């Protein structure tokens, strides 16, 4: 059977249901695809750590809109 692509494995990380039943069975049985999947997961986590850094502080859009309206910046 054809091995899974990196794109398929990357999408699986965000959306496990995107993997077809046949692909899931292949992934369970194939050492090469398991190793690649682990690599994809690790790279995605390291990239997310870089990008996301510290968690975003909460924001109150209603308060921001009110402040902008007070300044006449928006209608």
């Amino acid at each position, binding site marked *: 059977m054809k091995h899974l692509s990196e794109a398929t494995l990357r999408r699986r990380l*965000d959306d496990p249901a995107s993997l077809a039943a046949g692909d899931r069975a292949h992934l369970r049985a194939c050492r090469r695809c398991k190793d690649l999947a682990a690599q994809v997961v690790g790279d995605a986590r390291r990239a*997310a750590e870089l*990008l996301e*850094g510290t968690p975003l502080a909460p924001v109150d859009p209603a308060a921001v809109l009110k402040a*902008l309206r007070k300044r006449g910046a*928006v209608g």
Partner: protein
Amino acid sequence: MAGNFEDLFLAEYPRVLCIAERVLRKRTEAEQLAREVMAAFGRTWPALPDDCAVRLHRAALDASFDRARDKRLEDAGGEAGVSDAQVTAALVRMPRPSAEVLVLRSSRLTYAETAAVLQVEEEQIGAMLRRAELRLLREAAV
């Protein structure tokens, strides 16, 4: 999603801010930019188009990367926030679609929303993300 500006603002300001913060790495700068983007969008579109959220996300990306290029020059001789500056610099150096797919997904846009902003098929997003993550790791040398 056509509607009124207030609804758009309340629904999308957090994500516009997130897009700006992912690129600029500084909350204060990101807030300023996000407010400018929202205000400009309101002036440009007194009647909101059906795809206003897509256009707004695109405007947020463009403004963020434009500002990041200026910020990179300003930071070139600085010493504060080195790791954040490195991430911004890496994003600016990367092919633009790669940097954009990372920023959009890390701003919690869905695959469908991300594809709409980038004007690609949703099925391409997985491959784009994989390439972009590898590129970011190389660019940031981690």
